């Protein structure tokens, strides 16, 4: 039917001697894009305009207040020569690498386990997923306490007789980032489970059945047949987790506030500190721009492929 509805915009842009009027008045004919106009204006100003402004600010002499004297990449050079920014970027690598890997593995394992015709599956899913509903400012209070060496797990272990037990990662410079990973995994792995579970449920059960008829073990079936089919879900999970990792802010604020010292600084906390606490606006803008570029490098190709494949599937 309505073939034009399925064609990409480029095809529709071909010269048309006569266009169909979709309404009788000018307004009537142009309603669809008029509807979108307010959002378009807001998006142009508050998304793209502000992005452009921030990028420009990162190349300006702004300090206490915006000063739009163009200074080129001076602030960027300064940013990258800062030890603290280096720590933040390094932390982002450690944090996002571990966070993505662990959350993906746990999410996948949970999804496979839940896919074994489990009783009370709904309840279990509810429990696994609820952290997603809570702000980390809320759960952070509990995490901070659980991880507190004097009061939390460590003292619990001591109570249980493991007098030598030590769990002081939260206050150790070299370990604190792992507590951030732990808390982040706790919050997000349920969601990854949901992505994988949805994907598993979408696999034709007859594939599993026929493989079983062929005498393959369950483990082999998952490893060789099922998991490879989850590739799109892996892709989605990684993109989302990376996006979460780069944006993580309240997580760090609530758990470590970037400390001990600067040990758990991430670009997001660095940006806030420089832009607002230290009134180094240009540096803050440069670090925000770095965050944007990092996310864009992943998201833009992702969105592009998602939108394209979507269009293809509509056309066919």
């Amino acid at each position, binding site marked *: 039917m309505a073939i034009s509805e399925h064609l990409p915009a480029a095809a529709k842009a071909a010269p048309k001697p006569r266009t169909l009027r979709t309404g009788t008045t000018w307004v009537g004919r142009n309603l669809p894009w008029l509807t979108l106009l307010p959002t378009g204006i807001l998006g142009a100003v508050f998304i793209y305009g502000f992005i452009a402004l921030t990028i420009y600010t990162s190349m300006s002499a702004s300090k*206490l207040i915006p000063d739009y004297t163009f200074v080129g990449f001076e602030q960027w050079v300064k940013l990258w020569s800062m030890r*603290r920014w280096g*720590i933040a970027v390094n932390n982002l690598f450690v944090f996002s690498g571990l966070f993505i890997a662990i959350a993906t593995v746990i999410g996948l394992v949970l999804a496979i386990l839940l896919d074994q015709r489990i009783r009370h599956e709904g309840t279990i899913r509810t429990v696994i997923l609820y952290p997603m509903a809570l702000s980390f400012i809320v759960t952070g209070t509990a995490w901070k306490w659980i991880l507190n060496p004097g009061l939390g797990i460590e003292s619990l272990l001591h109570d249980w007789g493991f007098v030598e037990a030590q769990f002081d990662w939260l*206050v150790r410079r070299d370990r*604190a980032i792992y507590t951030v990973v732990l808390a982040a995994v706790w919050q997000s792995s349920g969601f990854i489970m949901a992505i994988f579970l949805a994907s598993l449920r979408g696999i034709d059960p007859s594939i599993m059945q026929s493989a079983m008829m062929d005498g393959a073990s369950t483990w082999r079936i998952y490893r060789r047949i099922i998991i490879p089919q989850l590739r799109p879900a892996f892709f989605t999970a990684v993109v989302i987790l990376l996006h979460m990792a780069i944006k993580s802010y309240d997580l760090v604020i609530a758990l*470590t506030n970037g400390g*001990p*010292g600067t*040990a758990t600084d991430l670009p997001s906390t660095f940006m806030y500190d420089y832009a*607002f606490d230290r009134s180094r606006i240009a540096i803050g803008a440069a670090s925000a721009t770095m965050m944007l570029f990092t996310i864009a490098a992943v998201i833009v190709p992702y969105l592009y492929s998602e939108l394209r494949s979507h269009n293809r599937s509509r056309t066919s």
Partner: protein
Amino acid sequence: MKFLRTTTALIASGTIALSAATSAMAEGKLDIIHWWTSGGELAGIELLRSNIEAQGIEWIDAASAGGAGTNARTLFRTRVQAGDPPAVMQALGTEVNEWAETGILGDLTALAEEEGWYDLVPEPLHPFMNVDGSTVAVPAVWSQINWVWGNKAIFDEHGVAVPQTWDELVAAAETFKAAGITPIAHGGQPWQDTAIFDGILVSFDDPDFYRKVAFEQDRETLEGPMFREAMERLRWYSQQLDEGSPGREWTQAQAMVLNGEAAMSWMGDWAKGWRVAQGQQAGVDFICFPTPGSNDMFVWLADFFFFPKIEGEADNAAQQAFASAVMEQQFQHDFSLIKNGLPVRTDVDNADWDDCTRDSIARAERANARGGLVASLGFAHSARSDVQGVFRDTLSEFVNTPDMSVDEGIEILIDGLDSL
């Protein structure tokens, strides 16, 4: 312009003088951003408010509690950008100078001369009030940073006298440790890590050394033996803490001393304010002493109010009235009592102060005589905030990284300073 402004100021101050007598004559409103939202600070601002409102000036309060002034600064900055600055803004140390340089601050020189501020206010505060010959800010209160607060019962019980030298401090700490008491309670937040370093820098009793480090960041001094020793002392300090210190609020650290979990704690004189609010008494429940070795040194920080240029004669008059009210003798007396800081006027009656504050004032005088009355590095008074930021980041990392060597710490610091 200048003439006009001076005239306005004269008229305005005249109005104030009049209104002080007749009251409720002035009009205008006073739009103020500050972050004094707790304890003695809050009581102080309420006092100021009632004084101002008694003059018939409307007080519009935009207190912003979050993040030790962060939100207040954001709010101020956005309003400056929007061309709608408040009449009064709170600031610490060199913040005044930074804002003055942007050219948005008004001039109170006439009022300052009329009321003779520069004769009343201790000289070290002058550079923050007066930028390029123009008076832009008034100090509200100032504080000694190089204080140590001890739990008197613990000190007495273990027969430990107030340590006068660094070695005595080390010995005292050993005694407490042996008794199973945390020697020092510390709030492991970057600003606190830096604040206690102020105390270490003056523990050498060498004004020149402090000046070269805090004001000049003299590379030779930073690479020299005394600064090395300072870093060693910081390392030692970091080893006296309990494992829960990172991230702790300063009040919690004070509470540990109060509860007897720890023997002592380093913090500025606002920690005494907190103690008094908890019903503690100086010399009875707690003891106060300067960081060992710094009995004749005084590191200070001061809270200022500055005054952006705004439109409207009545509102300008309100600004002047506010400045006058802050500088007023009775207010200075009352406020320094409530907040447990030092008055910024030298002519305030000291009869009501406790021993710690009297000690502090005497120290300030002694220090001033030998050039040892020095502005804080940790709170960005001796250097701009970017320099202070490098110190803060480095020192905080150093404190929290037990295996970082002193050499490494110094190298990181110098690299950081070089990259500015």
